[in-house]
């Protein structure tokens, strides 16, 4: 049994069908990178997996359990999410951003939650920022805090929705380094990204999406290194300079 199973996923916004039938499995410890042009449905797909967008049709399973409106809050505690625009809580300190979830959702004691938060901040290289507020951090630092916030819930899988797209170029590396370290530690990750270098180096599997379908999938050396489909070739010829 795969950790995540996506079966026949479709999503429409009004008359616009963004996802036209997606089937995909993700194994435990696997890093899946989703690439493709804007409007191809990558972000919609990842947002459907944790029901931030409600699928129009199809089923998604985590550890064999069907995700529904009823169990979604419980499922999301096992499924972290990192957003393009960070979405840190601006009225909370960095430390509180990391403890608010565990304390309120999982009932972890404050002392324990803070101890863990400090450990996680150390892991993302921000030990000295615990008492800062998000607005005082650079974009790269904010995104590393956001990753630590997701980790604080002890998720089984983390969804990354274009985590470096809103960053200044010189800050992309520090965020990708944290993600690489996570991948090496065996975290299951689904990453929507435009960073082909990252996908090539870290992904176990890459899928190329276009027009609401998965056009091509496989190992990164095949999909990125030696694409078979004309649309994949066309896209990669534009992004790989």
């Amino acid at each position: 049994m795969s950790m995540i199973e996506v079966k026949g996923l479709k999503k429409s916004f009004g008359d616009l069908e963004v996802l036209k039938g997606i089937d995909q499995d993700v194994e435990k410890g696997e890093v899946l990178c989703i690439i493709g042009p804007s409007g191809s449905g990558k972000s919609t797909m990842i947002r459907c997996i944790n029901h931030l967008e409600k699928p129009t049709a199809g089923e998604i399973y985590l550890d064999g359990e069907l995700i529904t409106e009823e169990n979604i809050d419980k499922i999301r505690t096992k499924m972290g999410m990192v957003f393009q625009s960070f979405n840190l809580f601006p009225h909370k300190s960095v430390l509180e951003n990391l403890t608010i979830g565990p304390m309120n959702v999982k009932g972890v004691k404050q002392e324990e939650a803070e101890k863990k938060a400090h450990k996680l901040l150390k892991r993302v290289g921000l030990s000295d920022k615990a008492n800062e507020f998000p607005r005082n951090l650079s974009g790269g630092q904010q995104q590393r805090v956001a990753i630590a916030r997701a980790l604080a819930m002890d998720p089984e899988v983390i969804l990354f929705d274009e985590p470096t797209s809103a960053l200044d170029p010189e800050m992309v590396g520090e965020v990708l380094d944290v993600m690489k370290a996570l991948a090496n530690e065996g975290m299951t990750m689904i990453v929507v990204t435009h960073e082909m270098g990252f996908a090539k180096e870290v992904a176990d599997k890459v899928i190329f999406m276009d027009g609401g379908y998965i056009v091509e999938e496989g190992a990164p050396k095949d999909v990125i290194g030696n694409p078979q489909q004309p649309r994949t070739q066309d896209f990669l010829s534009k992004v790989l300079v």
Partner: protein
Amino acid sequence: MAVYLKGFLIACQGIPTTIWVSLVAIVIGAGFGLVVALCNQSANKPLHYIAKVYVDVVRGTPMLVQALVMAYGVPQLLQSMGSGFKWPDLVIPAIIVCGCNSAAYMSEVIRSGIQAVDKGQMEAARSLGMSKGMAMKLIIIPQAIRIILPAFCNEFVTLIKETSVLGYVGVVEILRHGQLWNSSSFETFPAYIGVAIAYMILTIPLSKIINGYERKMSKKEAAR
């Protein structure tokens, strides 16, 4: 000059009543206003429409009319139906009216504050496994409060001034004190100037505090 001082001091006798009526009313207004705002945004259609109608009715009628209906109209209606209902103290309907009136305006302020919080905040909170209610309480409302604090204080200033209509339903607040003295002394100009100054020493410092807060906030925003 002495007569002006007298007029001012007499008006000042109404300050405690004006302040506590306004304070109780703004607390009711904030609490009830939050409920109305949440109903207004609710996916539940009947709740949504009840909230909308409530806001329209209150905002579409003068507070004096609402006060007259509550203080005199309601007891008359109940009495005509055979009950012996009478307000034990006319300050009670006065506070109810001010609170409910303010709730309608506050609900609009609160609604705009909630909508001004970035949509990603709700998504981030939900993605940590928070229910919608918990996300509202811990993430959205605390941020909305910061956004609406100036508007909230402005509503309080407005409310202080609006309570001047309560003299017509038997509450002896600032204006009523002035009126009573005027009718016994015929010092009309000093009486009403005294009333005006009494209101100003309540409202102007409050407005200054709000302006200061807004300046501080916009500087903070600019520093981002």
